């Protein structure tokens, strides 16, 4: 059902009893045109765009738990397109544009909030590196501004300008960036895909792949065998585990844990997103009032969905160095998500060497912002068997050919990206 003033009014007056499930809890059919493995934001967005853009509606999204229970629900909700490299920036800017029209398209308020992201710099060399990035963003049609120290102070006067170990010299601002309500993105895409006929099948874990010769023609699941002409994996965090069942036992991916943090609710104090590179810290404030913040990954292979104290302390130190007024505020919740850390820090949307199997993986800690464009490009690949032009650099064979997309320049060491 469509959400409108009228539906809200009617339901308000009738005890909210008229609402229908946001999406059908579908049971698997024997066969589909396309199966997407993974009911996170990327998988659901892929199904939605397959149906809406490509008219492929005989699609199932299968999820081992409940939709949005992986990294889609375990991130810091930032959306931005402030990338440097030509392999990345067009993709993320396309994602930004999709975010900008998402809620009207889905008829779902995902609270896409363009309150801006500010990357602080602390030296002339960092300023110039950000200028290079800001200029690259402009060349891609994105917005960027280079602020000096006073420009930053006018925006965030409470940062530590007077006593900082790494004095703030300015920042790179992207005003169109911001945050979105992560769960609502999942639910909005699920509802949108469902309305177009996509089956969303929860509590359905892949236990194997059905093969005909070389090709994959379906999946074995805890809810039985399901056949499909094409199978797309969108299971970041678990990519190696699931792909290994299809015979892809070695991939340019390691699984790492990233912790994120929320404070108790507070009256508004941080309007947009601030990142503090010298302190490995970034922060925003949710509409509910919690400060949402994070820092580096823990830095060792992990599937445990939990981290350790050194990173917790490191993040808090960054927070206190940047904003010494937060000392008496309290950390309320922290959680760990498992990241597909790729070997160059950039994602993969590509065919695999196995016919019928397609891969959407390697999102590192940046998958949330990519959700719309990832779905868009993966749907394009699945529908047309060729990469979409804004995601064309995310090839699986780039590690072999050397066409790397290494934003940080740290090489083939995932825990440094």
């Amino acid at each position: 059902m469509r959400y409108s003033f009228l539906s809200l009014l009617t339901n308000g007056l009738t005890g909210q009893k008229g609402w229908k499930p946001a999406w059908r809890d579908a049971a698997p059919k024997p066969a589909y045109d396309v199966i997407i493995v993974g009911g996170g934001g990327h998988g659901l967005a892929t199904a939605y765009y397959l149906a809406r853009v490509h008219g492929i509606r005989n699609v199932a999204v299968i999820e081992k738990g409940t939709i949005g229970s992986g990294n889609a629900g375990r991130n810091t909700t930032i959306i931005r397109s402030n990338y440097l490299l030509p392999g990345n920036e067009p993709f993320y800017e396309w994602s930004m544009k999709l975010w900008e029209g998402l809620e009207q398209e889905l008829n779902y308020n995902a609270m896409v909030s363009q309150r801006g992201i500010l990357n602080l710099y602390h030296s002339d060399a960092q300023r110039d590196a950000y200028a290079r990035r800001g200029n690259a963003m402009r060349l891609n049609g994105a917005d960027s501004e280079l602020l000096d120290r006073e420009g930053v102070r006018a925006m965030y006067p409470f940062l530590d300008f007077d006593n900082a170990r790494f004095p703030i010299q300015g920042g790179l601002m992207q005003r169109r960036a911001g945050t979105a309500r992560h769960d609502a993105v999942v639910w909005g895409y699920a509802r949108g895909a469902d309305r177009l006929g996509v089956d969303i099948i929860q509590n359905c874990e892949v236990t194997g792949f059905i093969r005909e010769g070389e090709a994959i023609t379906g999946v074995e699941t805890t809810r039985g065998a399901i056949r499909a002409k094409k199978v797309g994996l969108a299971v970041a965090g678990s990519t190696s585990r699931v792909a290994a069942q299809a015979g892809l036992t070695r991939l340019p991916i390691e699984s790492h844990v990233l912790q994120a943090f929320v404070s108790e609710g507070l009256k508004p104090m941080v309007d947009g997103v601030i990142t503090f590179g010298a302190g490995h810290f970034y922060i925003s404030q949710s509409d509910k009032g919690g400060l949402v913040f994070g820092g580096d990954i823990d830095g060792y292979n992990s599937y445990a969905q939990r981290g350790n104290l050194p990173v917790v302390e490191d993040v808090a130190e960054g927070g206190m160095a940047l904003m010494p007024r937060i000392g008496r505020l309290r950390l309320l919740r922290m959680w760990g998500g498992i990241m597909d850390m790729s070997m160059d820090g950039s994602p993969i949307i590509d065919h695999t060497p196995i016919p019928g199997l397609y891969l959407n993986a390697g999102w590192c800690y940046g998958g949330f912002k990519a959700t719309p464009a990832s779905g868009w490009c993966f749907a394009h690949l699945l529908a047309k068997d060729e990469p979409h032009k804004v995601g064309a650099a995310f090839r699986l064979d780039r590690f072999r050919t050397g066409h790397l997309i290494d934003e940080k320049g740290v090489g083939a060491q995932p825990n440094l990206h």
Partner: protein
Amino acid sequence: MSRLPVGGLIDRARPLAFTFDGTLYRGHEGDTLASALLANDVRLVGRSFKYHRPRGIFSAGVEEPNALVELRSGARREPNSRATVAELYDGLEAASQNRWPSLDHDLLSINGLLSPFLGAGFYYKTFMWPAALWEKFYEPVIRRAAGLGRAADEADPDHYEKLTTFCDVLIIGAGPAGLMAALAAGRAGARVILADEDFLPGGRLNAEALEVDGMAGAAFAARLRAELDSLPNVRVMTRTTVFGVYDAGTYGALERVADHLPTPGPFQPRQRLWRIVATRAVLAAGATERPIVFGGNDRPGVMLAGAVRAYANRFGVATGTSTVVFATNDDAWRGAFEAQRAGARVTTIVDVRREVAPALTREAGALGIRTLLDGRITGTKGKLLTHVDVIANGRRERFATETLAVSGGWSPSVHLTCHHGGKPVWNEALAAFVPGTCPPGLEVAGAAAGTFSLGGALREGRTLGAKAAADVGHTSPMIEAPKAQDTPGAATAFWHVAESVGPAFVDLQNDVTAKDVSIAHREGFRSVEHLKRYTTLGMATDQGRTSNVTGLAIMASLTGQGIAETGTTIFRPPYTPVSLGALAGHHRGKDFRPVRLTPTHEWARAQGAVFIETGAWLRAQYFPRPGEKDWLESVSREVTAVRAAVGLIDVSTFGKIDLQGPDVGAFLDRVYINGFAQLGVGKARYGVMLREDGMVMDDGTTARLSPEHYVMTTTTVNAAKVYQHLEFCLQVLWPELDVTIASVSDQWAQIALAGPRARDVLARIVDAGVDVSNEGLPFMGAIEGAVMGGVPARLFRLSFSGELGYEIAVPARHGAALADALMTAGAAFGITPYGIEALGVLRIEKGHVSGNELTGQTTAGDLGMGRMASTKKDYIGRVMAARPGLTDPDRPSFIGFRPVDPAQRLRAGAHFLTPGAVASVENDEGYMSSVAYSPHLGHWIGLGFLKNGPSRIGERVRAYDPVRGNDFEVEVCSPGFIDPEGERLRG
């Protein structure tokens, strides 16, 4: 006053004054803010998050959802502080929050009228029309209305510290089970830490009036505490919350050192973060009482029954002039009896059960308490509770009461057992989740394990304490368990009064009602995670302590599944919220990270240096002189002095690695792209090393001091990384090589001396017999000798500036003396100290690459050093560097730039476009990496990367820098702006 005339563990001889919303009140030492407010009949203490409904004190512990206040004021303002655990001190200031204009009259309580429209999921369905209004209108309004307390506006003035400690057995919680566990483990001789969040150990022994070994529970707790204090191997830490279980027996704990004081004492931290490494742990965290969901269950005056009992027994406070109890279990009856005996007037007990033990009704009758079985509270009245509506045996009644004490049973505090991913297990008999798989080394005792009788908790604590000690090798005869009430009370599972009138709250703080749960159910948000996220159930500062289980029980009844099948969310750290200040410790302000100072720091300060942060280092940026109008003038003078005469700069920050052994040459051949095995003794060579992926990792010079002794320099920023890499190569890749390395970065001070008069200066400080002539120490020569009268030194003839140059290394303690000696020796030649700005200008003029070019994204080919790479050997990165993506001739490569209009200032970060081309990513041809004003040339110069750069010398390209508003043409030129033939440095 609701303070009872006698009783409680407060010190009536020590009155304390405090204010709440500006009104002065009095309490006693031993009070919490909540008990003192109740003693002063303050019943309205807060407003709810969403509907701004009036709320009162609900609990007596960390589970408090309602009584959140801003504690203290000014820079020490602590929003969202639970009044129920805030220890009272003289002068305490507290204020209600999330209300306007006042607590009593809160305009946003209008939201309550809109509540029929504001159910779960409301926000997701609206505010979309028109789209532009979201950021401009809807969201700002929502943001202002949301949130709870206000953060302080100023920096936190207090200090925090972090400590690590070790023990054999950590006991978490000093209630009956924890005290006994500590005693058993302590007497056995184990190193024990007993941590308790309260300021008074004892847990429920203090809140209840049950006897242990014939004495009052509180007295028993005090006796045990005294014995534990007497054991040298036991440490009792009060006001200390263990908030997280991490790997390998590491526990995070927060000690509130001075939160019970107006301000911390001198040199006292406010709080202390403990990392406790324990071989074994016993979790004895007790249990949390559950409310029952019914209409109007949020009114001030509705409280947990155990809290009413605690306020009466521990604090000597009657929570109202009259009390009705609404319960599902025997324990609440016992509490009612205790409260009645203590003097709080309990009028009625309403129990959902049709039958209870006759002894209970008999005792109630004896105490004058009316009992109503098969009863339910259906609604409440009053802004502050005045009446409750009851249905019992089919009959409806309304009673007047100020307090409604509610008990839906107890939930074991299993939180820490989940910190490694273990899921609590539903126990149907207990109607509670009990611990599932625990973190390694941790066992659970007492109520936290579902052992709800006092005798059972004491016994289980003793047993697990002894077992933990035995596990680490401390055995002793089992101590006797004290005698106490030994049968857990009967209870029934009951969650929600179906006949409720008015909103029935599940999560009091987030205003989630039973109706919201049903909306979530209707819309398909039925899994625990979806329920939680869609309704915000359990997401408030109380972390759902009083709401999670009831919420999912209501969902289970809607789906028709059992609670076990519905599942539970698992708990993650922190157990209770932890201040960010404590987690940061002293790492803030200037102490955020250590500062590394060069050996000549004080010397540079005396020379008037301006310092700048460069990574971990503080380095001299430039040395201004009186009359110079800006940094550029100073830097240009320094550059000119080096080109014309001589200058010196401390380069000790470079990484310095000593390599010794017969295989060093072979080793270096494998880590550098160019050859080192054939390097002559007394010679230095510039080298480039790659990562195994083929990108340049670092560059620097390495000198051979003797056949088996080399010294390497690395860039400042990569010093640690290169050293680690070399150790990896030696220990992992090629252990057969006989090479030993040591970092000597901190052991040697190194000063670069550059300029045409450098040799003249150097000659004056070397000891007799050290030949620094062009023959004795030719370009790229490296010799050992003594300077300044016997100070051992290494002399390298190197040049980063393009001038005749030396680097002189002496033991670090002689660094400042060396600088002084050079200044003295060079005075006659106009020697000038220069900083890293001038160093940068000199290297850019000479066309050397530096950190701006060594981005980790550049190949040796990109940097114009492809020809250095040996084809006669293997080296790290060689194979991968040959991949097509790294050898593509279209890759932007290193080249120089000068402005077409010499007045234009170049900017690093500008991108290059072919003139006339549209500014788009397709036409992006590279970027400017480094720029400087060249005093030698009289205009700005730049280095950068340009597609086919070296073949485009003389061509004009557009330097496009929209973020700084620049867009003009530059000419491609050789990166060697000065002395391209290198005559100066060989002279």
